[in-house]
């Protein structure tokens, strides 16, 4: 799937972008998932769809909503605010694993 096929904003969905190894794991660059979704349920939702993705990709990735970094609720660095974040219809979420090669 290419960026050209990026789905438009669908009712009751948000777009999730998979970068680097997240893209290889899911074989997708982007897909639409049902919204609203509490941020703290995001990883469990993805794990259900892509078994093993949590340990292989998500646990060390950073997450953005609408191009802005968010602390994942289970992060030690989280200050509690993330607990209440809900991904809304039309949001763009991105999963960004570190890339280390060069």
């Amino acid at each position, binding site marked *: 799937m290419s960026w*050209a*096929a990026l789905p438009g904003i669908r009712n009751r969905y948000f777009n999730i972008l998979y970068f680097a*190894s997240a893209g290889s794991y899911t074989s997708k660059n982007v897909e639409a998932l049902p919204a609203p979704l509490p941020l703290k349920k995001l990883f469990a939702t993805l794990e259900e769809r892509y078994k093993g993705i949590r340990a292989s990709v998500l646990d060390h990735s950073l997450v953005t909503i609408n191009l802005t*970094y968010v602390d994942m609720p289970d*992060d030690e660095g989280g200050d509690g605010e993330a607990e209440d974040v809900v991904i809304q219809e039309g949001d763009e979420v*991105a999963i960004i694993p570190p890339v*280390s*090669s*060069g």
Partner: protein
Amino acid sequence: MIVPGMGKEGQLRLINSRVLIIGAGGLGCPAAQYVAGAGVGTIGIVDGDVVETSNLHRQVGHATSRIGMKKVDSLITHLRGLNPLPTYIPHPFHLTPQNAADIISQYDLVMDCTDNPATRYLISDICVLLCKPLVSAASVQKSGQLIVLNCPPTPQGALDGKHAPCYRCCFRKPPPPSSMVSCGEAGIMGPVVGMMGVAQAGEAIKILASALHIPPDDSASPPPERNLHQPTLLIYTYDLDSAVGPYSFRALKMGGRKKNCFACGENSTLTLEGIKAGNPNYEQFCSVPTARCTLPPEGRITAAAYHAARERGELTEHILIDTRDSEHFSFGSIEGAVNVPFGKLLMKAAAIKRDGTPASEVLPPGLGEADAPIFVVCRRGLDSQETVEKLKELGLDHGGERRIMDIAGGMKAWKEEVDPSFPYI
């Protein structure tokens, strides 16, 4: 180089600056060209490798005539041709916890152009402790990342107000080794890594010309007015799947320094002495145990033994599964091999578990149900072992009656043991 915002003052700051480029590869080569061209006064380069043919498509500071030369010397030769005026300092060895602080302390700004997570964490930690800004880029396959860290630099543990993040604030944990591959292994598009290296040079020049690298508390030379932006992670994605698909740049707003960051946060116990003495252990931190299995000997066969058995006619009825990606498979394979890329196989296996599709569908039609033994080969012999385990888990071994074997060492071993002309790329 006269543009709005860059006049004599900025140029003088560049001449008086000392930049350290760590890694003389796909990022370091393009980055160094523009740093040298901009007239930075002193340029240090760290790398312990020598130039190889397979580097040249992306490592534009080297040349066919310099294959076998230390990369540091090769790149400096190239840079002198571009601009003989800067002082070039070669550090022809790898950065280690033992030598890192001594080298980095001699410079004003560090550019991380390395290719492995252990060194990335080491560089970031030292930059925090020595108050050096860090311009970090990385690239693999078709995507790249760029972020300016620790800039303007502030002392470890300072948390009043907004401070720039370090690498650990952004990426707390390294990925498991099984998912990490070097550029040589995973493949890399030359222009993608080149773009990231050039962008990296742009950020370094900007920081130095506007004196952002001078810590705010340095009263000896008051820094000019700062126009600070929120820390930004630039992501570049290049799409090969579609002829009309656009490239994509995304600028992601990052958070500031994290209160509980292991390196720069409050109560951090990280010290230069500790790092030198092996604490933290970067190698260990970056090679956490993986779920990757090692099959017992009876589940494996060497490439040579497999070939010999075929030659003797003992393996007329068998299925050979090649789990490499189709791009690798397209360059050549063992006669009769069926290509089932590992990623697709894992997805199918997960789907089978989830919704009860017949287990045989993990393989192309007809192969799953058959009784003929299955041999699995991959690139280097890891994915194939996991595949053997998966096929058994799905019951394709018919309760142990059907042999499912791994060809140890993959196509790499096949080239070494059986067919030296095989195009292992």
